[in-house]
């Protein structure tokens, strides 16, 4: 974990840039942050990224905001959190404030609508590509991890269960498995 102010500055500007492009919900921020901090800067590992998303989803409120604050914390502790959250919140805030003043013009603009609609498939593609990269630390693990992933995917996608319950089951399952492992080693 680094403490230097230069990390905080880089965090702030990176998040400011990223937050300008997080159209269409919280998950978009995951591929963007992964690309920046795992691929480009290499400040975080693939596993770090998974842990960040896990903790972000276990906290209430907007996933994107929590992902930003976790990323900041991992890289430069509490100061990093402040830098990352400030960077993430400023642009959308300014943007919404302006739009809410001239909303009718924005709503009736066909160009904005076409542009947004055309961006959606690209957003989905980028999320899938990131998810595939994040699959690697799961596949390197025991088989049970892959099964857990399939089960969670089915529960979420088909049954529409709230994410928080599935996370809870995953955490309990993982904790139980680790305790069982410890016991087995102690016995044998």
């Amino acid at each position, binding site marked *: 974990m680094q403490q230097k102010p230069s990390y905080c500055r880089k965090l702030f500007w990176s998040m400011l840039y990223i937050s300008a492009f997080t159209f269409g919900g919280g998950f978009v921020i995951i591929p963007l942050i992964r690309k920046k901090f795992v691929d480009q800067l290499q400040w975080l590992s693939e596993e770090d990224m998974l842990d960040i998303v896990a*903790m972000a989803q276990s906290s209430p409120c*907007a996933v994107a905001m929590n992902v930003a*604050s976790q990323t900041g914390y991992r890289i430069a502790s509490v100061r990093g959190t402040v830098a990352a959250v400030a960077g993430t919140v400023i642009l959308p805030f300014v943007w919404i404030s302006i*739009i809410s003043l001239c909303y009718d013009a924005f709503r009736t603009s066909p160009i904005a609508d076409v542009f947004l609609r055309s961006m959606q498939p690209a957003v989905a*593609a*980028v999320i*899938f590509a990131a998810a595939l990269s994040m699959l690697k630390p799961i596949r390197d693990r025991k088989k049970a991890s892959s099964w857990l992933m399939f089960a969670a995917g089915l529960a979420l996608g088909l049954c529409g269960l709230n*994410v928080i319950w599935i996370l809870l089951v995953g955490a309990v399952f993982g904790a139980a498995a*680790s305790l069982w492992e410890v016991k087995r080693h102690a016995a044998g």
Partner: protein
Amino acid sequence: MLLADLFWSFLKVGLFSFGGGMVSITLISQQVVTQKGWLTASTFNDPIAIAESTPGPIAVNAATFVGMQLAGLPGAIIATIAAILPGCAISLGLGLLYQRYRKLTLVQGMMDGLRPVVVATIFVGGLTIMRNALLIGGALELAAIDWLSVATFIVCFILARKTKLSSVCLIVGGGIVGGIIRLLLGL
């Protein structure tokens, strides 16, 4: 005390919206429409539409919008801070706990259990966006397939996997190229 009211309402929204954007929207609607009567149900659709078509998390955007409508810039600032405060504080707390206890087998086991679930949520999140993007109205029918979107998806996916192009380039590029083709073809 409209500002204090706003702060308190969005703090509650921020605190209890576990599980993503749509949960927050429901909570905000309960607070803003049902309980306080600040907005009518039909004007409440505006912040949702805006929040979906602008960058940034839906819950935070909706807070900014409602705050701005009710009490101008101070309202927007207060509501936004209230909406992000609980999530950031709690996730920061989890981060601190994790730093301290990550060496414990139990904690490592928990994270081992959480990671596959997280990957699954990202896949399902991508799938939801994909369904709405590739199928007009999200209907599972052959006639509803938007072929231009399918093409955009495939090209962007290949570029994301095979090249070092940034995700921002792909999203903005996909929007501009797809948008121009759509406008030219009159789709």
